[in-house]
């Protein structure tokens, strides 16, 4: 009985590992193929191992395209965008969690209500707004629609609510205003939540595709996710430089992901990171 049980467990383990290897195969292949020459791609049976470190694809990806500029664009938009996004969310969440004023719940639900309107279905009108504001091909234009994050606001509100109101009253008697209280008490107290949400925002903005595609026309304003689809090697089956670019994008995030694995898993389990 026990023997049979162990056997099925072992079989399940092997099946899971095989399935897992199949799942990560595309990532593995992108990495391996970034070292292939154009001749390697046409070999039969296809090559799936590295035989020599050929850096030509990496050099070409940087030389023949604006890849470096795309990366800088995405990095800037990711950092500034998620910081602004956290700022907006923190201010609103703090007001709703700690201050008393008329219409508080109504205004809060008004902001949360935007979750019912999927941004992908609003892109055309949003594009018209951005173009009227003269923000096409600007960083602010690309960031604009990501600056409001209702789910993050909701989570921050939960975080700020856990700060006892007496703290603010005591601080207020000592002449500490609300803004000062927010900056020197509330934010430091919710540090780890804010950091998690910031990272999640960064990944969201970094990975986004459709909107940056719409609001950028000039090649040097493109984000990296849009840029790599326009490198133009796919038609000629010259995939090497594309895989080099993909590897440069995927490798850091895989490493970050492995380092933060426990945090991400528990974040999903507790509902901090969904969507």
């Amino acid at each position, binding site marked *: 009985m026990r023997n049979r049980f162990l056997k099925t*467990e072992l079989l*399940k*383990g092997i099946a*899971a*590992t095989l399935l*897992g*290897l199949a*799942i*990560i195969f*595309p*990532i593995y*292949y*992108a990495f391996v*193929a970034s070292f292939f020459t154009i001749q390697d791609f*046409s070999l039969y*049976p*296809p090559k799936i191992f590295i035989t020599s470190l050929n850096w030509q694809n990496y050099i070409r990806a940087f030389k023949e395209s604006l890849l470096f500029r795309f990366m800088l664009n995405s990095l800037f938009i990711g950092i500034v965008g998620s910081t602004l996004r956290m700022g*907006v969310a923190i*201010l*609103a969440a*703090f*007001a709703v969690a700690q*201050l*008393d*004023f008329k219409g508080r719940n109504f*205004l809060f639900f*008004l902001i949360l*209500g*935007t979750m019912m*309107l999927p*941004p*992908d*279905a*609003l*892109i*055309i*009108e*949003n594009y018209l*707004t951005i173009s009227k504001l003269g923000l096409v091909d600007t960083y602010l234009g690309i960031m*604009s629609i990501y*600056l*409001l994050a209702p789910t993050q606001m909701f989570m921050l509100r939960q975080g700020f609510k856990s700060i006892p109101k007496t703290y603010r009253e005591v601080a207020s008697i000592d002449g500490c205003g*609300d*803004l000062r209280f927010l900056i020197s008490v509330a934010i430091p107290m919710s540090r780890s939540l804010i950091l998690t949400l910031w990272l999640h925002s960064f990944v969201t903005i970094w*990975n986004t*595709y459709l909107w940056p595609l*719409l609001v950028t026309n000039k090649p040097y304003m493109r984000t990296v*996710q849009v840029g*790599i*689809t326009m490198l133009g090697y*796919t038609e000629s*089956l010259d995939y090497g430089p594309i895989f080099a670019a*993909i590897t440069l994008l*995927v490798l850091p*995030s895989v490493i*970050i*992901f492995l380092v933060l*694995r426990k945090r991400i*898993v528990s974040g*999903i389990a507790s509902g901090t990171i969904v969507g």
Partner: protein
Amino acid sequence: MTLKRISSKDIAKKALEDYHTVHMKALSLNQKRSLKAYLYLLPALILAYVFSYRPFARTVVNSLSLVSFSGKIVEFVGLENFQKLFSDKNFIIGLTNTFKFAILFVPLNLVFCLVAALLVYKKRRFNAFNETLFILPMAVAMSSAALIFKALFNPTIGVINYFFSISIKWFDDPWWAMFTLVILGIWMAVGLDFLLLLGALRSVPKQLIEAAQMEGANALSTFFRVQLPLISPTILFVVITRLRDSMLLSGPVMVLTGGGPQRSTQTLVYQMYLDGFVAGNYSRGSAIGVVVFFLTFLLILLAFRSEKRRVFYQ
């Protein structure tokens, strides 16, 4: 020295005045404070108006009007845009494609993620390793993933055909092209959905499973009679969010198949992009947008309804 006679009336008057000034001060302080609170909310409210409510309202209005190429409303036409839309073959194709994708993707994804979760359900060291493999696709962005799959499925250089000893021209056949989109969709969803289902499975009380096994239930019936009903809230969540994602599918279509062959993978949002953005037909684009809103809204309502009925809560 003259003694001024102070009447009780004066005292009362003075006290009242004092009370008023103090009260007014407090009141104005309070008002100032709540005014500040509105200031904290102002950026969020402005963003909600400019990038959510206003474009939504405009999309609805545009869908009921004739709109010029510059985005100005020419005249109100009622439901004419929708009549045109639903009698247009291409739109119906887009709608069916979207549903086709959803019907294939949502159940396949659910079964795949459930199987993956069941395989590593018991907490073991090698299972922790397998878990990491399963969630790694989460680290890859959509456009990178789509480009990798484009190469893997390529009939000339792709390794998929070689591995399975087949020679399918994936992107030339309507069904296979849709299938590649589904595979890519599952690959991008597996990390999150697997984790959600695994968490749910692990939270099922052990005693219940042991009790079922004592009664002689095999693994299969334990799963269907005990575990499945208990994790149904998570399953419902996964199904509804993925249905919603299916209704909004566009990015993978643009990178992987470009809507082809012969519109067979054109989805609603992709058509909205083509009509409204590329062709500048705002009336039609907005009408498609309203259809998308309607579908996603319907799903949210459905989620609330079915939550009340079928789902088990502990």
